[in-house]
């Protein structure tokens, strides 16, 4: 029975469990990759497949140092939150708003915190980045619309 393996949102191949064991030993397959085979309802972390299939026990997964933080089933890392960094940058350039700067700072923290295993911190930064992006966008659009309305009305009334 072969497993489909996915990493970073892409399927990367199909291997048997034995092949995957030797690939993991060589560092080519990771416990954080997702695996699926016929009959399974969802993709699960490859580490869980190893743990379930017995044999070589999975090494302890990277632990978050925020114990209350979100961890996926079996202690494996949750999927990375969206950093929305591109949105933060586009909003800052096009709305030209100082409000976009905190959005960029928080968005830039998401991936580095996730990479350090601080999943809760990554999610918190992602949420703050999202808030600042929306605030910048709404303030930018609203003030722009109000300005246009005011100037348009002033022109219409012959000022």
């Amino acid at each position, binding site marked *: 029975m072969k497993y*489909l393996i996915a990493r970073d*949102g*892409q399927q990367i191949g199909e291997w048997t469990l034995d092949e995957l064991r030797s690939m993991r030993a060589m560092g080519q397959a990771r416990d954080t990759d997702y695996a699926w085979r016929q009959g399974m309802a969802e*993709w699960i972390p490859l580490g869980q497949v190893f743990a379930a299939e017995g044999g070589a026990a999975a090494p302890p997964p990277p632990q978050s140092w925020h114990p209350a933080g979100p961890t996926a089933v079996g202690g494996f890392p949750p999927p990375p939150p*969206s*950093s929305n*960094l591109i949105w933060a940058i586009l909003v800052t350039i096009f*709305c*030209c708003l100082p409000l976009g700067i905190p959005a960029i700072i928080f968005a830039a923290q998401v991936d580095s915190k996730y990479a350090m295993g601080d999943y809760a911190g990554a999610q918190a930064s992602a949420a703050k980045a999202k808030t600042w992006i929306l605030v910048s966008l709404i303030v930018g659009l609203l003030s722009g619309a109000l300005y246009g309305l005011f100037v348009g009305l002033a022109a219409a009334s012959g000022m």
Partner: protein
Amino acid sequence: VSPVSDPPPLPGRKVPPRAAALAGLAAMLALGGLIAAFPPAPGGFYPPCVVNQFTGLHCPGCGAGRAAGAALSGDLMAALRSNPFLALLVPFLGWVGLKLLGPPLLSNRWATEPVSRRTALLLLASALVFAVLRNLPGLEWLAP
């Protein structure tokens, strides 16, 4: 014999709802229509840049509206003069737009980050360099 089935959608980053993507697309088209119908001009009803109003400096987005207006009326040289950075970035911005709108419009449940962290930071760095350059004496042709 169990039937062979396709794998379920991959886990990954959450995709925004389709309605949000449609609303964003509609807003972009409406703004494009407004700019095409009433190209930005001095004394017009488009809001001036806040940073420029308070500091007198040109930000990397200054001239974007005039550039869009010029481009939509077919005057690509005027678009380049108003904001060369954004005018030259149009193909890239179009590609980003496709990556942002594609997954929600196709109702995909997962997607990779639309733009890699490296590309996004490169965009930010070039915008900052452009912002510095267009405010330097002697480089006024980069200003809007």
